[in-house]
C-alpha cells in the first residue's frame, strides 16, 4: 500500500500562513511544533511534516474508505532519519521525503520493504477512479493496481508499487 503527497513550496508560501495564531495547534502535536520552531527552516519543516501526514492519511483512507480530517492524529517521528515514521491509531507508516528548493514530496508505505518497489507513473497512464480513489488499469491482466496521485501548484507525482501486492 502506498500514498504520496507533494507541496509546491512557492504556492504554499502564498496559500497558507502557518504563523497565524492557532494554526499549528490544530494540526501538529506539541512535539512536532517544537521540532518545527527549533528547525533551521521552519517554513520548510512545516510542509515537510505536513506532507508526511497527508501521504500516510492517503493509505489510511484507502484501507478504511473512511474520510476524516485529523492531521494532528497522524504524528510524525524520526524527523531527521532518512526513513521517518508516522503513527496513527497504533499503526505505523514509513515515510521518505524528498526536499529541494521547489517542492517537498513524501512517499508513505505500510511495509518498509516497499520503498524498493516504488515506481513513478505517467499521468497519462490508464487511471480510473473508484470512490474517489485512483487505480492504474492493467488491461492485459484485468486488474487494478493501487496508485497514488498528488498534485499541488506546478507539480504532480504519480506513484505505485512495482510488484503485485495483496491489495490488488
Amino acid at each position, binding site marked *: 500500500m502506498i500514498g504520496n503527497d507533494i507541496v509546491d513550496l512557492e504556492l504554499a508560501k502564498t496559500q*497558507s500562513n502557518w504563523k497565524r495564531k492557532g*494554526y499549528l495547534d490544530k494540526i501538529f502535536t506539541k512535539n512536532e511544533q517544537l521540532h518545527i520552531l527549533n528547525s533551521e527552516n521552519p517554513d520548510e519543516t512545516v510542509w515537510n511534516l505536513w506532507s508526511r501526514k497527508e501521504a500516510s492519511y492517503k493509505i489510511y483512507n484507502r484501507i478504511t474508505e473512511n474520510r476524516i*480530517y485529523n492531521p494532528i492524529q497522524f504524528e510524525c517521528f524520526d524527523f531527521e532519519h532518512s526513513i521517518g515514521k508516522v503513527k496513527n491509531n497504533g499503526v505505523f507508516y514509513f515515510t521518505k521525503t524528498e526536499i529541494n528548493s521547489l517542492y517537498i514530496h513524501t512517499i508513505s508505505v505500510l511495509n518498509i520493504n516497499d520503498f524498493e518497489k516504488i515506481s513513478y507513473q505517467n499521468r497519462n497512464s490508464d487511471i480510473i477512479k473508484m470512490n474517489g480513489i485512483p487505480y492504474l488499469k492493467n488491461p492485459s491482466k484485468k486488474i487494478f493496481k493501487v496508485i497514488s496521485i498528488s498534485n499541488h501548484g506546478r507539480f504532480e507525482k504519480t506513484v505505485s508499487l512495482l510488484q503485485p501486492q495483496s491489495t490488488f
Partner: protein
Amino acid sequence: MNKEETISKLKAIIKPFVNNDLAFENLSETTDFITDLNINSANLVDIILDVEEAFDINIDNQSMEKMLTIKATLEIIEAKLAEK
C-alpha cells in the same frame, strides 16, 4: 442566528479558499470542501480558525475531524452555539 444567516456567514468564510467557482455557485449542504470545492487540505485549518472567530466558538479535534462538508460544518456550528 437562523440557518440562512449561518450559511451566508460560512459561505463568506470559505469563498477565498475555493478552487472551483462553479461548485461554489451551486453550493448545497452536501457540498464537500475538498472533492467539490477543491479546497487545499492545508486551508481547511484556515476555515476552521475563521469559523471559530466568526462564531466565537471553539472547535475541538473531534468536531474538526468531520468538517469536510457544508452539512457537517453547519451541524458543528449549531451544536457549539447551543453549548454557549
